[in-house]
């Protein structure tokens, strides 16, 4: 089957005056159709940069990015993007934000919006403005907004990073739920090893300076996963091992 996202030999250098920062170095990564791939790595290793490239928001790079076999040229609804901040339009209500440029007076849009509101469990808040929503609710509106466009892949950049532990756990469950009902391919960026192992079918560990793929850990646990099970802890330790490797090397080199 055609992979949802293919990243082939992507390199990226930020040029600013004299000091160039080589951020991504020949990154290869494939997200298979229906997969839940998580990207994890130290801060500043280029995760957001990579996600922006896949989203088509940054076209200044070397290499190739394919979405279902077709080269990515610019941003589009086919690649849903969830940013760390919800980025809702403050002047639109929750349901208007989900519809965004579409009209809720259109029966089809109305029906799909209502379905999504139920899916992300926002019933009762359709008419609320973003300022009246909590961080977790806002992020769910953002997810619904992306899903309404039926994207081929959903790109999430630390979507739950700014939330408290309870809300985060709640939204992780919600995201799993969406993934399982919608079968949308996911590419998630996170700092949280626990989140990575809990959600994904595969965890990809990135190295920093320059950012490159260091390891790929398949997570073969059945859903729903229990965070306290032994296999879960083992996998978490494995991912942590890959992440810490670099730090040890750094420690020795000092």
């Amino acid at each position, binding site marked *: 089957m055609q992979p949802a996202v293919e990243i082939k030999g992507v390199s990226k250098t930020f040029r600013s005056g004299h000091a160039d920062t080589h951020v991504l170095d020949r990154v290869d990564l494939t997200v298979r159709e229906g997969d839940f791939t998580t990207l994890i790595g130290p801060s500043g290793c280029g995760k957001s940069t990579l996600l922006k490239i896949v*989203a*088509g*928001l940054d076209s200044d790079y070397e290499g190739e990015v394919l979405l279902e076999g077709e080269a990515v040229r*610019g*941003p*589009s*609804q086919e*690649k*849903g*993007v969830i*940013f760390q*901040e919800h*980025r809702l*339009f*403050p*002047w*639109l209500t929750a349901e208007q934000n989900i519809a*965004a*440029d579409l009209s809720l007076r259109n029966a089809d849009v109305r029906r799909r919006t209502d379905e999504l509101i139920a899916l992300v*469990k*926002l*019933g*009762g*808040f359709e*008419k*609320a*403005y*973003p*300022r*009246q929503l909590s961080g977790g*609710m806002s992020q769910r509106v953002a997810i619904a*907004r992306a899903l309404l*466009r039926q994207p081929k892949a959903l790109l999430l950049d630390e979507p739950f990073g700014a939330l408290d532990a309870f809300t985060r756990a*709640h939204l992780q469950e919600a995201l799993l739920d969406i993934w399982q009902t919608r079968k949308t391919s996911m590419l998630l960026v996170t700092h949280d090893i626990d989140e990575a192992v809990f959600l994904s079918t595969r965890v990809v560990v990135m190295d920093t300076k320059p950012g490159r793929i260091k390891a790929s850990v398949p997570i073969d646990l059945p859903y729903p996963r229990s965070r306290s099970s032994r296999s879960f802890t083992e996998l978490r330790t494995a991912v942590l091992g890959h992440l810490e490797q670099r730090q040890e090397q750094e420690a020795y080199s000092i």
Partner: protein
Amino acid sequence: MSVSLAAPETALEAKPPAHRRKRRGVFLRGAVLPALIVAVWQWLSSAGLISEQLFSSPWLILKQYAALARSGELPHHLRISLIRASLGFLLGGGTGLLLGLFVGMYRRFEEVVNPTVQMLRTVPLLAITPLFIMWFGFGELSKVLLISLGAFFPLYVNTFLGVRNVDAKLFDVARVLEFSRYRQMTRLVLPAALPNILLGIRLSLSIAWLCLVVAELLGADSGVGYMIQDARAFMATDVVFVGITIFALVGKLSDSLVQFLERRLLRWQDSYKG
């Protein structure tokens, strides 16, 4: 967690009575000083301490209001003034809004247009008035153009500022969601710039009103400004006061109208403390 809570809009729309009472209190406190001044003024002129000929009195002014309204003179002049001011405001403000939007949206356009506009902005309006009269005569055209020139700048500057303040991150969202140009304007740029645009409208309205007075005092055969000028020639102080208070009233009324619009349209704002 979500369904058990009441829909937030109900909480939003039913303003608590305490809030209303507070606003009434604010209004009353603001009215104390004007009421006091009127009372003292009336007392001074009734007691014969100031000349009624020069300073008139609140009571005389009120009587004059009634007389002028009955004769149809006041409605006539007021109507003409309102038409002039509205035409000028629509022409100048509309141009300012459109130009501000374009200059805000397209950097190239800004580079070409903005320096010239900023230069013109520094020219005092009163200095241009003689030119306008030479070019367009004493007729309606020169009046409306003078008013529209005054109304142009505040809306232009504030719209431009508003567009530039639109969060670049939201533009990224609009790109990802593939907004059409039209939708980008109506769902992103205009609403985001709306607080600034409304401020621009308020400023433009007050300047339009100001320019109207200037235009009508300089030369006209109708309008509230003419009424004042005419009354001055006959030393009819009370009519002068009628004209002045009418200007003040209509000015305040139009300002309140925009404020009301602000309250309605900017409900979504976090910072709004209406």
